[in-house]
């Protein structure tokens, strides 16, 4: 059943992403890292749990992503008026106030980009794990690697905390379901990224019939 073999990798040629040092890296044990002989950067990891672990974290992230974005993150009571707001709701109000570009700068890294990354990872990981051979997996993985730096849910989480402290003077602040879900989502998302090794995913997606050009040892 589980034909995704991560451990059976022979020694492979690696170019360090940071310093360009060419080196032969032997197969490493699960849970260990390979580091560059020159700059000591991490070349790649072999996370424990293979594909199953990031896939499980991704599915959990999807569930909490929905909860965090449907339920209000906070309920404010200002002079008897109650306000429930989700993240998208807050961004929408911000947009209506005449700052659409700022609303986009807030909403994209906190909602849309992480959402696309999580959905994309599900597509790629599910395709690999169950050998679906879904045709867009390669393109999606390229896009995920481009979007990753722009997902900022962890920074946004701190932003929610800071704004709550600031709002305490102005209103009664009651934390909502969305807030707890978002906090869990931040942890699940970080765990997903931490349990992933792009090199492993690329090896799994590599066209088995295509001729792979391995450079010689020089």
């Amino acid at each position, binding site marked *: 059943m589980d034909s995704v073999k991560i451990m059976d990798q022979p020694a*492979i*040629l*690696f*170019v360090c*992403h*940071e*310093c*360009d*040092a*060419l*080196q032969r890296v032997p197969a490493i044990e699960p849970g260990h890292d390979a580091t560059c*002989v*020159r*700059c000591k*950067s991490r070349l790649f990891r072999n996370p424990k749990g293979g594909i199953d672990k990031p896939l499980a974290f991704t599915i959990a992230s999807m569930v909490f992503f929905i909860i965090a974005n449907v339920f209000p993150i*906070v309920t*404010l009571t*200002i*002079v008897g008026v109650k*306000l429930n707001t989700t993240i998208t*709701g*807050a*961004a929408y*109000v*911000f947009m209506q*106030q005449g*700052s659409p*570009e*700022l*609303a986009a*700068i*807030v909403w994209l*890294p*906190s909602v849309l980009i992480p959402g696309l990354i999580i959905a994309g990872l599900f597509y790629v990981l599910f395709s690999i794990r169950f050998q679906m051979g879904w045709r867009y997996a*390669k393109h999606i993985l*390229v896009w995920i690697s481009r979007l990753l*730096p722009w997902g*900022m849910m962890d*920074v946004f989480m701190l*932003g*929610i905390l*800071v*704004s709550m*402290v*600031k*709002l305490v003077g*102005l*209103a009664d602040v009651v934390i909502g379901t969305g807030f707890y879900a978002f906090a869990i989502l931040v942890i699940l998302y970080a765990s997903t990224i931490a349990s992933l090794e*792009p*090199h492993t995913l*690329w*090896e799994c*997606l590599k066209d088995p019939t*295509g001729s*792979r*050009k*391995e*450079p*010689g040892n*020089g």
Partner: protein
Amino acid sequence: MASNIVSAKTLGVAGCHTCGQAVHMRRQDQVECPRCGADVHYRKHDSINRAWAFLIAAFVMYIPANTEPMMRTTSLGSTSSDTILEGVIYFLTHGDWPLALVIFAASVMLPLLKMIAIAYILILTQRASSERQTERTNLYKLAEILGKWSMLDIFVVGLMAGLVQLGALTTIAPGPACIAFAGVVILTMFAEMAFDPKLIWDRME
């Protein structure tokens, strides 16, 4: 020990910038990665010039980001606007120093340090310096990881403006510093992405 380590470029091999695959360049400047299909180059195109352009633009934006007000609070007819530093001082004088520290570190120190770090790396790289290459590589990686935390204050203003929507009683509106500040963060990220850390190690090759 270090003498027998060679850069892939000297052997006509390049690491794909998208997926990391070692690709034989077959005497060409650009080939298609056999694994992910992206274009593979030895180094990012025009890396240093593009990094400088983004960095200088970020430096310019940093000035209004700090001198203009970040947030305008209108409450019962009276309006107050705060720059980032005024916000930090407000929390400091009200005994909320952990919050003051977080905002100061994320909004004032971090973008400045990141810009200085990238400028330092760029200058030494242009001089083809062989000093502290490992340290510069680590500095680059640190700037890459920490940069996004400067978005904190933008998110705070965005959330507060979006949450406090009582119109007549209290409104919170973003100030002109917001867009400048977002510009600083985004431009420094572009500068860091445009720079190719492999150039730190390219010298006599």
